[in-house]
């Protein structure tokens, strides 16, 4: 099957019912995507499929045929949100962080400054047991400000 992964065309020969999460981690060694609960509750395994956040633990890999998939590795490491997550200590133990970053990208890219309600709604599917979310919200706002400066 064919797909785009982090901007590059890829061809995979995998069982169609395997979880996207497992194919990413085990076959493609993209271990930035974390497994938390495995049942779609925690958001740690969030990736973007055609621009929308989904939990890769509940996606049979066949369903991303022809899709554009972005994992945390595709965000690059020097994205304003990744830097602000460091600066604001939006990451502590780190297991939720890749999923949080991917789920929050749309907030950072949006023209309007995200309200607290918007941030809470966008991140409702990402559980963080360390930060209490406030540092994450600060990081999102800082990244948004940097992205839209000038």
């Amino acid at each position, binding site marked *: 099957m064919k797909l785009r992964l982090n901007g590059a065309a890829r061809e995979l020969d995998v069982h169609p019912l395997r979880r996207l999460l497992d194919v990413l981690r085990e076959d493609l060694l993209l271990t930035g995507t974390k497994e938390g609960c495995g049942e*779609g509750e925690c*958001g740690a395994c969030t990736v973007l499929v055609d621009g929308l956040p989904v*939990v890769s633990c*509940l996606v049979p890999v066949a*369903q991303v045929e022809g899709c554009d998939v972005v994992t945390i590795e595709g965000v690059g490491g020097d994205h304003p949100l990744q830097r602000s997550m460091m600066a604001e200590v939006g990451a502590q133990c780190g297991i939720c962080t890749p999923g949080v970053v991917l789920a929050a990208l749309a907030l950072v890219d949006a023209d309007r400054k995200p309200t607290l309600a918007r941030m809470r709604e966008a991140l409702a599917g990402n559980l963080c047991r360390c930060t209490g979310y406030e540092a994450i919200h600060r990081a999102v706002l800082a990244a948004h400000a940097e992205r839209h400066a000038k």
Partner: protein
Amino acid sequence: MRTATRDFTLRRARTLAGAVSVLRDEPGTVPLAGCTDVYVALQFGQRPGKRYLDLTPLKALRRITTRDGWLVIGALATYTDLQRSRLVRAHVPMLVEAARLVGGLQIQNRGTVGGNLANASPAGDTLPVFAVAEAQVVLLGPEGERRVPFTSFYTGYRASVRRSDELLTAVEVPPIEGRQWFRKVGTRAAQAISKVVFAGVRASAPRLALGSVGPTVVRLPRTERSLASGEPIEAALDVLRGEISPIDDLRSSADYRREVSANLVREFWAGTA
């Protein structure tokens, strides 16, 4: 994942007719849409089936349209699609509210209306909405299409009149008179399975439905009659307490559910006066 899928097979549907043939010729085939229930079952070590049929290539089933004043929601419409649809926002705002409260965005981007209905959980968030909307379910089988009133779709716990060779293709909603109201009560504000989920329509004959208080979603005909006859709300709530039979389970207790149900109906009645 606790269930090994190695020995399972997946077909991808290319046409509606082809999908129905697969269901007819290969009994036990499990249709797949957003997988937000089936893949949780697999994670828990269950085996919903050995053969799977992916419906997601059937893009036509994702459309939301109107016909003769009815809203026609394709089975593959996601919760995100419902929230973004101008038609749904105009016709069934209570469905938008229900969709907004299903899981987080990640689930809303994947889970589908058809899946919510076919999965037949008594806790399905959209089910009370379709019950009070007097919607009908469209089923496509080898002999053609049939329509079933939503209120007679379920026959028991996780059981419906859908035959295994039928595909749930759409849900159709008639025009709704009267104010619509939806409220879900879970353990936390977001990302929770409902303890009690309620939808109501304040028409001259009010319509009420509750989820998670019985083996299937229920309409409340006795409580509805009480409210329609102009009895005081507290008298109607006494009828309600006797009309539902919630159970104790891992998410909540029967007593809590009965009392919260009464509170929701009271709040609905005051909020739509």
